[in-house]
């Protein structure tokens, strides 16, 4: 297979701009202090990515505890109390600790490079937003050791299970989520400021790479919805500690209000985790198809419409809470509408492949798997949009299958594709293709073994979030558990591949991929600490 890959571009035929020449401004602190005090977007990007990878493994271990218990019917390894803490922590860690910080890390590294900026617009704020995260998640993880255990009410933490009936550690959970939320908001402000103010002269908005565009829109979504999350957890805090009754029916409150607020945050949050993935895939597919992205403008429009519509669909998570008929219809229609721009994106990627000149480097493999498997998640999403049918799908493993398809081979595969794609720029070395292919195929097989059978167990009637199940679901669960172990283990190959690439490997030139066009490929590989001290000479590519 390796022989099918094209020759890598040679060191000679890429020139670097003057902006790539770094010069040290001042004496820098060394050792730990260097990382603690850094304001450099590349170093902070690296910190974010390492943090995210760590959380990915912690959340993954929790998932494996869940899958191990579900390997067979009956209670074998853990008690239900601990099982619920594992499902909850798995969700919280993966959403807030792994996927979101990974995208922020990629944005830190790549947005300044892609728009030709010397750094993020607000470097000290950048440092602060990163260092909030380790504190927040240490606090969150420490709740597992507190009396009564950690959060056990699911990552959606529906009241009153998460208020009146919650373990005492819930207050710490709220505090940690507040910190993670502040970190996200500050990060989003920084990204918006960078994109709007620091673009290279001559780069108009419609000249920006799609990763930058999707992140710009994502950042606005973050600023719009993270305060709502902050609001809702503050109301929980008041209910728990100060005797209010926002969500307590006995005191005149409304448990359903919690769900409206949560999902008004939660649904845009779903798109926060997928829009940057669209941006990454939109960079990789044209590169390895050696053909400009099809329908650049409609990609931008589709991203914007998805973002706007994401505020109008929240109650499709609540079809069985007893909404009035009109509300059910409204949210069913809007949810169906949001499928259209999503479909357009998939069509655009495929049209980009059509009549290209395609090669299958690891980054491309992950991007292609993203297109297929994300679409499968999209199809089950379309089915879930049909409100009457949702009365049967809701809160079953069918839903679990759906959102894991959009998040694992969706968001996470896109992140991995991005890592393989930009590793030459970060380290100056190409990643090992052989290792990458092993990682890819193990992951693809593992992911499908894990999540595809969940469609069937869900349709057959297995509810979510249960530590034990009826005998007819046994076979599906056994397959899922085996797949999960395989997927988990194969991520060790990823870590090995990344470490190997950092330490050495085939040298990469500035323009590491033959078909790559954006500005990041005009600086040397590895990118020096300071790039674009003088703005680059930007010539728009026709979109």
């Amino acid at each position, binding site marked *: 297979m390796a022989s099918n890959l094209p020759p890598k571009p040679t060191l000679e035929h890429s020139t670097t701009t003057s902006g790539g020449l770094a010069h040290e401004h001042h004496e820098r602190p060394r050792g730990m202090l260097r990382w603690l005090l850094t304001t450099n977007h590349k170093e902070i990007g690296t910190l974010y990515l390492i943090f995210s990878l760590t959380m990915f493994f912690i959340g993954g271990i929790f998932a494996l505890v869940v899958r191990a218990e579900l390997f067979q*019917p009956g209670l074998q390894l853990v008690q239900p109390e601990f099982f619920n803490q594992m499902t909850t922590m798995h969700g919280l860690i993966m959403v807030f600790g792994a996927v979101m910080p990974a995208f922020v890390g990629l944005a830190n590294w790549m947005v300044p490079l892609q728009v030709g900026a010397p750094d993020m617009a607000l470097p000290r704020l950048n440092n602060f937003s990163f260092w909030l995260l380790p504190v927040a998640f240490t606090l969150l993880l420490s709740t597992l050791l507190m009396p009564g255990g950690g959060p056990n009410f699911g990552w959606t933490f529906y009241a009153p299970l998460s208020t009146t009936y919650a373990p005492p550690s819930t207050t710490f959970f709220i505090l940690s989520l507040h910190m993670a939320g502040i970190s996200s908001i500050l990060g989003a402000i920084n990204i918006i400021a960078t994109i709007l103010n620091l673009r290279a002269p001559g780069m108009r908005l419609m000249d920006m790479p799609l990763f930058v565009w999707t992140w710009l829109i994502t950042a606005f979504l973050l600023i719009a919805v993270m305060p709502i999350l902050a609001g809702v957890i503050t109301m929980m805090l008041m209910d728990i500690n100060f005797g209010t009754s926002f969500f307590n029916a006995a005191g005149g409150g409304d448990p359903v209000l919690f769900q409206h607020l949560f999902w008004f945050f939660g649904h845009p949050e779903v798109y926060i985790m997928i829009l940057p993935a669209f941006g990454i895939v939109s960079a990789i597919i044209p590169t390895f198809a050696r053909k400009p992205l099809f329908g650049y403008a409609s990609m931008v429009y589709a991203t914007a419409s998805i973002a706007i519509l994401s505020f109008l669909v929240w109650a499709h998570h609540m079809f069985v809470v007893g909404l009035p008929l009109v509300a059910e219809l409204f949210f069913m229609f809007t949810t169906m509408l949001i499928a259209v721009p999503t479909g357009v994106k998939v069509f655009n990627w495929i049209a980009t492949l059509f009549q290209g000149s*395609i090669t299958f480097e690891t980054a491309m493999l992950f991007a292609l798997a993203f297109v297929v498997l994300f679409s499968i998640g999209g199809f089950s999403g*379309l089915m879930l949009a*049909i409100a009457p*049918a949702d*009365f049967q799908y809701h*809160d079953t493993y069918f839903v679990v299958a759906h959102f894991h398809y959009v998040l694992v081979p969706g968001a996470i595969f896109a992140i991995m594709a991005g890592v393989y794609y930009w590793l030459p720029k970060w380290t100056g070395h190409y990643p090992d293709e052989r290792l990458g292919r092993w990682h890819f195929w193990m992951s693809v097989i593992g992911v499908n073994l894990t999540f595809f059978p969940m469609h069937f167990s869900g349709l057959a009637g297995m509810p979510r979030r249960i530590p034990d199940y009826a005998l007819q679901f046994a076979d599906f669960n056994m397959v899922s558990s085996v797949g999960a172990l395989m997927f988990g283990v194969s991520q060790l190959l990823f870590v090995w591949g990344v470490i190997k690439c950092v330490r050495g490997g085939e040298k990469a030139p500035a323009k590491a991929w033959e078909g790559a066009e954006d500005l990041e490929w005009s600086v040397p590989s590895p990118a020096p600490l300071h790039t674009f001290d003088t703005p680059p000479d930007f010539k728009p590519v026709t979109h």
Partner: protein
Amino acid sequence: MRKTLAWIMGAGSFLGLASSTLANGWNMPAGVTDVSREIYSLHMTIFWICVVIGIVVFGVMFYSLFRYRRSRGAKSANFHENTSVEVVWTAVPLLILVGMALPATATLKRMYDASEADLDVMVTGQQWRWHYEYLGENVSFTSSLSTPRSQINGEEEKGENYLLDVDQPLVLPVGRKVRFLMTSDDVIHSWWVPDLAVKQDSIPGFVNENWVRIEEPGIYRGQCAELCGKDHAFMPVVVRALEGDEFDSWLAERRKEAEAEASGVDREWSMDELMERGEQVYGAICATCHQPDGSGAEPTFPALAGNEALLNDRDRHIDVVLNGVSGTPMAAFRSNLNPVELAAVITYERNAWGNESGDVVQPSEIQALLEQ
């Protein structure tokens, strides 16, 4: 080359797997009501639409991956726009969705019409069991898991209906429209029976409506669908559907039992009678949190065995059981249990597991407190 083949085979096996969902036990049940069959056909329609779109889209994709490989000498074209193609692939999905929305809307409207019911059943979710009340019939009971703990812990072989068996199923008539009124005493639960296509959240402080007209007698099993705490997996729903006349005689029988129970309030009960009855009630209601041996689960569920506060203050003990403790998971049981059951369980708690208060609480005393 091999890679492309693998890709194609991968896609093929997805579709193969997908179509075999038609096999039994892999797919949504069509169920035994008009509504459930309509939902099933909506489900299959949208499923096949997705399959067809998938075949077309992935077909073009894999064709491109195969045909335009660089290793086959493909030279890339440079087009990146085509207004008419883009209009078509935006408009066609829109039209498909409109076509799908029409039948879905019709079904949803039928599901929301709970008017003119022949029978009203109040369904109350409680951690972790269901309470059913036949409104206006003076019949009510609690339904909890009957699968023995030993099967769950693997000390005994698991039975056929493992985790899907209850002590008292909900009994419903065939051919009559039954309206459910759903609520909850503590956290949010969700009452779900796949064969009836009824899934409705039961929410504290709210009353939700749903309805069913079962067409075939039989036993239909389901589970709580909304995470409700530690025993969420262990609160199944079992519905036994009887022919109309069988149902009527069942209901008359239950009504008679209820009247007999009510008359027991006035008489004097002996300690042994109360202890025996109290043990049953405790096992069905209290033991999930406070544990069968009264040891509780600190810090959320206090121990009852050897609990000084409980032993020293009889009035407060009665108050807690009747009215609950606000801000904690301890629910108020004044309307869920009858005076006999309340008196028995309180007596039991004050005299079991080495709690030797010697106190007897009579049903008449509870009755008087309830009437205040």
